[in-house]
């Protein structure tokens, strides 16, 4: 019988700890498929965050480093500066990247640090049990916004791609989603491009993946994916926010 689909080589056999219906498994697969497609597993070093993906170092079969909460872009900077021939990626959630690690994120971007960042935005802190994230939507009910996120006292969500694309330096910024097959296929292309950019020495590439958290959103997986479509994507529109490669072509 022909094999038509199998686990990417750059994922280990370790069983994932993620909740049923959590898209982290899909996003891990897309990252691993990109690593496989580019044949870079042997020279790739991943940086795991603090958050639901904290144990990602067990799932990717390349070398891995576990960073402190929010510090992955700084750790990745150290790795890349000392091993410029290697491929360095971080895998971070919204609390990690856009709250406690915002300074590290913005400054890695403005240095056009030649790294790849996979940013998983599910609008909630999953690991700690569902607190308000910097990307939680206005009115969203969480453990720490039990009456709904009140923008007057708790501020507005941060649109990371829009914010970073205001900088001159970063090379490539795109937002994708994984709530249906079409979006997953687009996400796959974007993630591979983000790795290819690094191999070609282009610089900072960040792919924001709009994700879901059925457990802490209190929804079935199907309903959560529908919520992504109905609520998340309208607030976090998909698309390419910065592509200095395309800008350069246009300028010519």
């Amino acid at each position, binding site marked *: 019988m022909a094999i038509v689909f199998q686990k990417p080589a750059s994922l*280990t056999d370790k069983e994932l700890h993620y909740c049923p219906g959590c898209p982290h498994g899909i996003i891990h697969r897309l990252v691993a498929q990109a690593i496989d497609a580019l044949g870079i*597993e*042997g*020279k*790739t*070093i991943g*940086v795991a965050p603090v958050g639901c993906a*904290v*144990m990602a*170092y*067990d799932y*990717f*079969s*390349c*070398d*891995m*480093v*576990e*960073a*402190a909460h929010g*510090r992955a872009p*700084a*750790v*990745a*900077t*150290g*790795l*890349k*500066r*000392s*091993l410029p021939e*290697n491929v360095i990626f971080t895998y971070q959630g919204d609390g990690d990247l856009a709250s406690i690690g915002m*300074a*590290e994120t*913005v*400054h890695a971007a403005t240095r056009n640090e030649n790294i790849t960042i996979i940013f998983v935005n599910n609008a909630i802190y999953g690991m700690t049990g569902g607190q308000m994230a910097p990307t939680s939507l206005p009115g969203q009910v969480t453990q720490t916004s039990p009456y709904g996120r009140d923008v007057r006292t708790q501020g507005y969500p941060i649109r990371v791609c829009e914010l970073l694309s205001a900088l001159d330096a970063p090379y490539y910024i795109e937002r994708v989603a994984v709530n249906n097959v079409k979006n997953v296929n687009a996400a796959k292309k974007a993630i591979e491009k983000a790795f290819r950019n690094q191999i070609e020495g282009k610089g900072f590439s960040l792919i924001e993946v709009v994700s879901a958290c059925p457990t802490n959103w209190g929804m079935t997986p199907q309903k959560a994916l529908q919520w992504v479509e109905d609520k998340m994507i309208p607030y976090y529109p998909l698309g390419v926010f910065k592509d200095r490669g395309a800008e350069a072509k246009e300028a010519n």
Partner: protein
Amino acid sequence: MTEKVLMKGNEAIAEAALRSGCLHYFGYPITPQTELTAYMAKRLPKMEGGVFLQAESEISAINMVYGVASTGKRVMTSSSSPGVSLKQEGISYIAGSDLPAVIVNVQRGGPGLGGIQPSQSDYFQATKGGGHGDYHLIVLTPSSVQEMADLTSLAFDLADKYRCPAMLLADGTMGQMMEPVALPEPHMGTVEKPWAVTGTQMKRKHNVVNSLYLQPEVLEKTNFERFERYRQIEENEVRYESYLMDDAEYCIVAFGIAARVAKNAITMMRKDGLKVGLIRPITVWPFPKKAIREAADKVKGFVSVELSMGQMIEDVRLAEECRRPVVLCNRAGGMIPGVDQIIAVTKDLVSSVEGGAR
């Protein structure tokens, strides 16, 4: 004889680091260690493989250090007290992941923003852990520009040998003063680092640099293993200078700039017939416990001279096992105890011990 050059302490640290094969430096501006960062900014970009980066914060700088240390390459950051406080999270991760790295603290007075004059008030932070969790740093305390260079070299070697971050605990005086220094011969580390993340090259199982262990019995085991290494460090790496202790009846304990003032005070007291000696810890962790304990067999009392409200004095008391009086001679907030003050405090101790005999 190696030729000596006149250098500032901060620059001597930088040059010694470069000569020790440290090609990666991450820092953030802060007084009074500025010259060190400036020296690295000038030199590293001109060296093959050299990386200098001014980080967005002390927090980022130490995490960049963590990244480079994960690859097994020699790396350093430097700061002064408030900045070193910011680095504590990262230092705890470096210690918890068993990585070698060198951190320089050119101390200034605190707490809070404090001031910019010299201090030794980060002693507790440096020697007792500093960040969260059970861990130690190897802490070296230079007392001259020569030692700023020599102990920097040593810090890299010890960090590699024991897979443990090492700290050079200097102070603003040491950083700013100029003295002739014989720079160390260039040498690279020779310790094998099979744990480093360098890419598997598809030839080995992946390496993981990590301090997370969710099973408590596994985390406990890593703590026990780390403390076994600390025990070896305590056994093998204690360093101190013993000065005029052979016939001493009283012992001053002081490190860094305080030890230099203490030596002058001792010279003057000896002219008056007072037999005073000095134990100068060079490593404050591991602390020279045995030297102090043995001194307690012979001397009648100790004076701990410090640029703080009295921090090392606790280690002196623990080491001498409460057998002799231990008094504090200190200034704080950026002030330095003078020779007169040291003589006065020592003479007070002498008269309280010997009572009416004098």
